Structures are given as C-alpha cells and as structure tokens.
C-alpha cells in the first residue's frame, strides 16, 4: 500500500515543487516575516521605541503631572546623578549584595546539583523536585515566610541558634546582617540554576571520568579538571543571568521594608531608588537616566564576563 501511494505522490510532488521554484525563496521569506511579525512589532512598540524614548527623556525634566512643560536640559540629569548620594547608595547596596549573593547562589546551586546527580543517592528525583520547588513560591510570599523565620524574637532561626548558645542578630533590621538575610531568601531561587547545572553534569561524557580514574585521579582532581572545565559555559550562563537579576532586584527589598529601603538605606537597591524617583517623586526624566545607567552597567559587566570567558570557558566544539 505504501508503495502504491508513493508512486502516485511523486509526480504531484514534482509539479508542486516546480511551481514553488518559480517564487521560491520569496514566498518562504514572506511566510517567515508573517510569523515573526508579532515579535517584531512588539520589539518596536515595547522595546526599541521605549528604549530610544527613555534615552531622549533622560535629557529632559519630563514628568507626568505636567508633561507639556518638559524642557530639554542636556546632560543635567547625568551630572546630578554623579553627585546624588542615593544613586551612589543604590549602586553600593546592589554591588554589596551581588558580591555576597552571587557566589553563594552559584556554589549552592552547583553543590545541590552534584548532590542530586549522585547515583548513590536514594530517591534522587524526589530530592530534585523538592530542592527546585521553592522557586515556584511567589516572591512576596517567600519573602514574608523568611521575614517570619528570621524574626529576632519569634523566628525559628534565632531560636535554633539560641539552643547552641549563639545570640542571633536582628537579621532584617541590621544594616550588615540584612545582606546575608537577603542571600538566604535568595537561596530559595536556586531551582533553575540547579537544574541547568544538573543537565550540564549529565552531559559530561562518562568516558572522561573512567579514563581519569584509570590514570589514578581522585574525585577532587576529576571535579577540578573535568567537571568544572566542561561545565564552564553553563556556569557562565548562570553567572550572566544572576548578574542581570541582581541589578533588577526589587520585590524582596520592597516587601522587607514596604519600599522604605530600611535600615538606614541598606536595602535601597538601585532599582528601588529608580522606582521612587519615577513614581513617588515624579522625576521621570531623571529616572530614565538612572535606567540607562543601569543598562550600561549590565551591558558592560556582561561584555566583561564574555571577554574573560573567551580565555577561561571551554567549548567542546574547539573554539576558545
């Protein structure tokens, strides 16, 4: 039966193909544009347009109360920003948090991935599911849970520390301890990184480990000389993504202090400062300038990471 239908289908196919060949790539290209059109339109309307508009606004004193009175003020916003202690504070807070949280998150997600990848572990898939699960909890809810857990009087963490004789700090109201506290909250977000690391670990060819074992390599040197190099593109991806999310850090800081940036502006992340300038102080031109500052910083850091990666990251294809 299959042969029968094939013998009928072939001539039809050739005629069709002939017809298509007359308007060959054009027709295909037209369909391609039709299908990607929604995204291209969205890109122009919601990304490129606003991107350029916010650059223009950053040179004005635009606000929404009196948009008609908008004046072009040149670089004034950028000059003001350079001397604005709150913008500086926002950058310092964000950097301080990034320096603690990003390494902790990277190491924790790799550690948990190694753990739940081990063939020796009973119930691996249950562990994977449970370590992944907290990322599903709405950030507002998980932050509230942690606020309760970290409460110096009634929270369990200080209660447990008290059992072993340690007087726990006032995690969320102390300008130093608030960063470890936010890092702890962030640990509930390792799920995606963990799964990506896990897939990376599983893609390392087993033969490499076997060869290394025959050569007498121990687990640590196999980890350092096989796992880490082969995982480096994935670790770089995770690093870039966590950098971007850190510069967009907002919800946890906002929920913690209801947007006040307490204690003593220690949680005034740059994004929170931008939000307040734009929507509380109605300095929208100025906030656009802060937005562009953020964009440039993220872009620069990403480029630096990729430049470092060109030397350090191993790609299986051979290109360095």
């Amino acid at each position, binding site marked *: 039966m299959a042969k029968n239908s094939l013998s009928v289908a072939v001539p*039809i*196919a050739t005629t069709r193909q002939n017809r298509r060949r007359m308007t060959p*790539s054009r027709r295909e290209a037209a*369909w*391609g544009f*039709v*299908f*990607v059109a929604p*995204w291209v339109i*969205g*890109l122009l*309307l*919601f*990304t490129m*347009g*606003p991107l350029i508009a916010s650059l223009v*606004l950053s040179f004005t004193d635009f606000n929404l109360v009196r*948009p008609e009175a908008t004046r072009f003020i040149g670089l004034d916003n950028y000059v003001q920003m350079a001397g604005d202690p709150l913008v500086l504070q926002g950058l310092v807070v964000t950097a301080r948090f990034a320096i603690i949280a990003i390494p902790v998150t990277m190491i924790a997600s790799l550690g948990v991935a*190694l*753990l739940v990848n*081990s063939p020796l572990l*009973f119930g691996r898939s249950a562990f994977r*599911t*449970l*370590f992944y*699960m*907290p990322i*599903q909890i*709405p950030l*507002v*809810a998980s932050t*509230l849970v*942690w606020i*309760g*857990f970290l*409460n110096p009087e*009634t*929270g*369990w963490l200080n209660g447990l520390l008290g059992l072993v004789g340690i007087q726990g700090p006032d995690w969320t109201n102390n300008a130093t301890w608030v960063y470890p506290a936010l890092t702890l909250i962030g640990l*509930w977000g390792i799920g995606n990184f963990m799964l*990506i690391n896990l*897939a990376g670990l599983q893609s390392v*060819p*087993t033969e490499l*480990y076997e060869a290394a*074992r025959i050569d007498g390599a*121990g687990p640590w040197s196999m980890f350092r000389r096989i*796992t880490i190099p082969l995982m480096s593109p*994935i670790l770089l991806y995770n690093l870039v993504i966590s950098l*971007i999310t850190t510069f967009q850090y*907002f*919800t946890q800081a*906002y929920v913690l202090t*209801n947007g006040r940036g307490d204690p003593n502006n220690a949680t005034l992340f740059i994004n929170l400062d931008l939000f307040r300038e*734009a*929507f509380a102080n109605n300095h*929208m031109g100025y906030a*656009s300038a802060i*937005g562009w500052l953020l*964009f440039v910083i993220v872009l620069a850091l990403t480029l630096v990471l990729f430049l470092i990666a060109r030397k350090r990251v191993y790609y299986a294809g051979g290109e360095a």
Partner: protein
Amino acid sequence: MTARADTRRLPGFSDRGPVSRSFRRFLGRASLTLFAVMILSAFLLPLLAMVTASLEDAGQRTTPGAPIYPASPATGTYQGETFEIYAVPIDGTTRTLMLVKKGRLESTFIDPADTTQAPIVWQGAWRTLQQSWVFDPKLNNFTTVWSQLSFPRLLFNTAAVAVLSTLGAVSSSALVAYGFARFRFPIKNILFVILIATIILPFQVTLIPTYAVFTKLGWNGTWLPLVVPHFFANAFNVFLLRQYFLSIPRDLDEAATIDGASPFRILRSVILPLSIPAITAVSLFHFFFSWNDFFLPLLYLAGKPELQTLPIAIQQYNALYVSQPTLIQAAALMTMAVPVVVFFLAQRAFMRGVVITGVEK
C-alpha cells in the same frame, strides 16, 4: 539523561568479598541520603515555621514557655469553672494539676484526673510553674485573611490576568518560534540575535516611556498593561519553542505541504500537536510568572483594590498587619498554595522546560 558520571564512588574501598562490599555500598548510599535529607530539611525549614505560625493564636509566640507547635493552654473544669493546668513539683515528682486558687506565696490545686480528691495546697509562687499546653491547631487565621482580603476576588483577578497573558504569550510565541524554526528569510539571523539580546535588557530602561504611554492611553488602573504586551511574544518562550520545533522532522511538514496544507495549517495540525510538552512548559512558566509578578501590578494596580492581584494585596496586607505574624504567615501560605500544588502536579513539564532554555542554546 544518557551518560551519568559516577563521581562519588571512591577508589580505595577494599574488597573483602561481595557481601561486605555491597553492605559498604549500601552504608555509603544511606549516609549520603541522610546528608541530603539534612540539607533539604534545613532548606525547607522556613516552610514548616510558616505552617506552624499560621495555625497558632496571635499571642502564643510571645508567651514564655509556650511550645513551638500550635497549642493552647491545657485546661480542666472544677465545679463548673475552667482552670489552667500546670506542672507542679511535689515531693520530688512532678504532677500536672489544675490551678484553682492563685496566691503569691501558696496556691491551691486540684487533680484534673480526679476532682473529688481534696485540694492540694502548694507552697511557692505559681508564676514560676510550667504551664501545660495541648496541641491545638487553629484555622481562624485563614478565615480572617480570607474575609479581610476578599480572597475569592483576589484569586479570580490573579487567575484572570494570568490566563489572559498566558494565552497571548503562548500563541504569539508559537507563531514566532515557528517562523524562526522553519523559514529562511533575510536578516533572520540578525533578528534572532536581537531576540536573544533582549534577555539582558533590564526592564527599567524601557519602563518610564511605557508607563507614560499606558497612562496616556488610560490603561493605568486596568489589566491591559499586564496582558497586552504579552501578545507580542518574548525571548524565553520563543527560544524554548523554537528549540522544540527544530527537533520535529521536517519530513512531516513537507508531507503536509505536498498535501496542500498552508503554513498556518501545518503549524496547527502538525507542529503544535507534536509539541504538547513544550507548549505545556511554556504555558506553566508564563502562567506562574504572571501569577507571581509583583512589580507591574504594584505599578498599575496599587490603587485599585477591586482589580488587584494576590502578590500586591498580600504585600499591602503585610504593611498593615506587620505586628500580627500569624495572620501574615497564613496569608503567605494561601498565596503560595496554587503555584505549589500545580508545580507538584506538573513537575516533569516544568523541570524539562528549564533545561531546554538553559542548556541547549
């Protein structure tokens, strides 16, 4: 999922015969699993603290001597009145007795097991005694939050916004992903690079003009800013779907083309039915991205209680009732219930989708 590296089998385990070796291996596995259980317990401990707090009376946590589980003071009745029960040290043993008459220097107790016995007079300050508690979880925090927050409305709002924006995101992303996966056209590669580049674009840099335009259009205070932009696809969804579409053999579309099917028809009848796992993953991701989103609802709906979504309502509730942790923990539990339950039901689709976007780039 193919080759798994057995990195943890340590060399140097001496072979003393098969029984001993397999027992050692079992012991190794058991201790590793125990270690994992300990890490996991610490990781999820705040959830237990949340559940516990949400079942407690407001005052329990600040009462000295109260247990960490939800409990009420143990009581008994004597001559028609209710009295609290304490642990009383008498003659070297400790008895649990009902305190019927409080006094500064001596107090009178009754044995709750047998109230016909003579009252026991105990010398000492009753305030130094340990009160007895009984396990007593209460649901009134949940009912309070449910009614104070008009929870059914919040659930409806959150679900409605999430469903609408998911419909838009998935349908538009499927079209765009199909375009990138199956057609050759000029500047396709440039467009794809731009698509990926939008991932690193911080949303703050486009925020203010977008907000200004939406406000100008009268969309501020409506669901439109949370829904409409998603009808124009986004990089993560397109990327995930494109990867999946690329894995579908082209022979199938070609066969359909030969049968005279249009590209739209091929997408609908060939590609999409074969991509159910990817479509499911994208839908779930987007649904809960929307369900959990805080920033945009805060921006556009903060002043509209009747249109608000859960995260923003819960945040405002926290700001109001910050001194009542039991209510807040109950509210947090209610906010996470739907995402967490759905996650457990659909965990495979979720976790597979993460891997597609993260690794196969």
